[in-house]
């Protein structure tokens, strides 16, 4: 499950979306727009963001400095950030 | 002033008040049927003839209209007569004198002719005296402007109300319940003049204000003790003065308890309890938490047989039941 190096690239969006829903089960994943910030779409707050960061950290095994949190605030941004941190994805 | 008390009876307290009045003021004299040689129908004036003589303790003919009228004349003439009518039942023979003369002359003379008359009379039922001798008509008299109506229920009031009545410029009718004459109790020697402007709260409680007077007071207090064990606390108000009513004390208490129960020996229809209930509704409607209720005498001429008379009169059981109904706990 941690072996994301083996995950197909096409599945990365879906994987991040899964983590997002795990953190915020009250949102509808089908309605998430990749280009918008979570906050603007569904009242994502700092605790949600924190939990999301924790989930990313656990799932991908990367340390995320606090200053990078701002790159996790939307689906497309997050995927781009993960690719920059983990080029093998 | 000493706060010492002495053991006495309601009857003796009344007699003590009469003796004091006769001693203190030469204008005071007593007048009535059988009050001299016989000592009064209820023995209140016993021995006073020997002490004060025939001029001041005057036996009258059996004509209530005549001797009440004579009393009014004496009061107009500057005396301080105390007239005893055996019972309220016979006072009806003097009703014209009381209502049309005593109550009105001061007003019709623009205050020139006050009638400082005191009329004492026994009232109430419970002694198997049957329908013609068991009336409680003080509520009727309380209907009449120009009169002051008092009803001493305690020994201190029996002793202290007469002096207050003699100080009053208007005619005062004092109703003494026949069930109280033999009541024993402590007289506060320092009690002095009773305040006939104010009702007295004889027992405080949070749940129901009970408005009563005279002998009914003791049934209410007994019911209060019984109800207290069931968690219902009665506040028992002794009205003391039935006209004018002490609205301030009554309404203040009702506002606190939010419930009012009237207990008296009159009949409900057009009675004093009806008046009290209406005042409560007029002045404290938005503070009420239950309908006002009354425990009064059954609407029949008072029966002679003991069990029927008891059933007709307000009883502790009926007061308890009414209280339970008002707070919705079944007895």
């Amino acid at each position, binding site marked *: 499950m941690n072996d994301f190096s083996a995950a197909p690239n096409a599945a990365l969006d879906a994987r991040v979306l899964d983590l997002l829903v795990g953190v915020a089960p009250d949102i509808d994943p089908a309605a998430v727009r990749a280009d918008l910030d979570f906050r603007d779409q569904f009242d994502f707050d*700092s605790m949600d963001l924190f939990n999301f960061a924790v989930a990313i950290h656990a799932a991908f095994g990367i340390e995320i400095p*606090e200053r990078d949190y701002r790159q996790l605030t939307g689906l497309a941004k997050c995927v781009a950030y993960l690719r920059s941190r983990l080029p093998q994805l | 002033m000493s706060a010492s008390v002495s053991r006495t009876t309601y009857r003796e307290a009344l007699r003590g008040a009469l003796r004091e009045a006769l001693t203190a003021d030469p204008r005071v004299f007593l007048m009535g049927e059988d009050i001299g040689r016989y000592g009064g129908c209820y023995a209140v004036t016993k021995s006073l003839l020997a002490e004060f003589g025939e001029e001041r303790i005057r036996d009258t003919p059996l004509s209530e209209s005549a001797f009440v009228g004579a009393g009014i004349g004496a009061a107009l003439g500057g005396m301080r007569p105390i007239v005893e009518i055996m019972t309220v039942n016979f006072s009806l023979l003097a009703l014209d004198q009381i209502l049309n003369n005593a109550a009105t002359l001061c007003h019709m003379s623009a205050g020139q002719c006050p009638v400082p008359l005191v009329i004492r009379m026994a009232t109430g039922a419970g002694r198997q005296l049957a329908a013609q001798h068991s009336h409680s008509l003080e509520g009727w008299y309380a209907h009449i402007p120009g009169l002051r109506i008092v009803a001493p229920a305690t020994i201190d009031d029996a002793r202290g109300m007469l002096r207050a009545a003699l100080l009053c410029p208007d005619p005062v009718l004092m109703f003494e319940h026949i069930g109280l004459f033999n009541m024993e109790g402590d007289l506060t020697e320092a009690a002095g003049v009773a305040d006939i402007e104010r009702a007295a709260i004889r027992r405080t409680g949070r749940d129901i204000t009970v408005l009563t007077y005279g002998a009914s007071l003791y049934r209410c207090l007994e019911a209060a003790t019984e109800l207290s064990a069931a968690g219902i606390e009665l506040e028992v108000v002794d009205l003391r003065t039935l006209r004018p009513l002490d609205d301030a004390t009554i309404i203040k208490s009702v506002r606190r308890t939010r419930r009012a129960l009237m207990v008296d020996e009159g009949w409900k229809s057009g009675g004093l309890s009806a008046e009290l209930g209406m005042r409560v509704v007029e002045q404290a409607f*938005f503070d009420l938490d239950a*309908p006002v209720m009354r425990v009064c005498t059954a609407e029949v001429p008072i029966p002679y047989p003991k069990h029927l008379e008891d059933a007709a009169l307000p009883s502790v059981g009926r007061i308890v039941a009414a209280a339970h*109904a008002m707070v*919705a706990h079944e007895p």
Partner: protein
Amino acid sequence: MSREFRMPSLGADMEAGTLVEWRVVPGARVRRGDVVALVETEKGIIDIESYEDGIVERLTVAPGARVPVGTPLALFQGEAAAPAPEMPRPAATAAAASSGTVPAAHGIAVPGLGSPRDAGKTVARAAPSAQRLRASPAARVRAAALGVDLGRIQGSGPQGVVTLQDVERIGGREPAPRVATPEPPGGARAGMRNAIAAAMGRSKREIPHYYLQLAMDMQPAVNWLTAFNQERPVPERLLIAVLLIKAAALAAAEKPGFSGYFRPAGFEPAAQVHMGVAIAVRGGGLVAPAIFEADRKSLATIMHELQDLVGRVRAGHMRSSEISSATLTVTSLGEEGVDVLYPVIYPPQVAIVGFGSVLERPWAVNGRLEARPVLNITLAADHRVTDGRQGAQFLARIRDHLARPGEL
């Protein structure tokens, strides 16, 4: 020895709840704190805990039923003779005590009260009319003042008349037997909006709020937090909200008059500070579950519990104890760039602390202007309990604690 386990009141705004699921079966042994049932309220699905040890004797309400607060749900065999309090003491002393004062049969068995059997003894009673709402004049006046809907109260007076006491029980956020309440139109979301409306309306009507505001330089706290988080992996980091919660809780423990409940009899200080934290529900709505004894917990523990709370608010699994036990509340709009907020006290609490955003602002330091992260802290407090001077001291304590983040 049997006692009733009743639908608890989870706040002044709760009228009824839907039993979603039993977590116990007859015969099961239950320990204090165990989740006994799931109940759906305007605030979502709440895990209802037992407050005593005992054995489940019988379940009297089936899943799916929506019943008023106070309705017996089950019979327990236990040691306690008194009905179970709905909340742990002393977190909600009065609320717990009040639930104990609702006798089992009180106000329910009204029909047939005045049977004619003892006509000579009892006093004649008027027959109750079928439709018209029966409430005493005093109850009507009080209900109007409190904004309480009389139609939802089961009266305890003669013939089921709603009395002043019944109204005050509801108004005082105390559970009482009520008639079945229909699901509010518009579903749970509208229900939550109604609940907030009721609580906040009551607050504005009843509580004489006073407001104080204090701005502070958060540079030391921000520096400390940045350094703290830099050294730690993501899961061990703290949010600034945790510092705010702890600082407010410490101040409340030090300055009496801000943690507790205002009851008809007056202010009841709480023995511990259970800090309610206002958590927004996505799409609108708000709940304020409690972090128990927040003044005594480490920042890491508070962070962990806050994380857990927010997660369960999102997922709808709050516990009955935490939803009804707050003795004081903090609220923050830090995410939105709002400078200052003027919060509304959640009755019967007596204070609420509002935190604005930490924003870079000009700040005078030793005669020079510098750009500093500035936080506006507001206090809304109940003037029946405290005055501005105490409020100012309370706010100053919060500031002093935040100025020394290492000691939090």
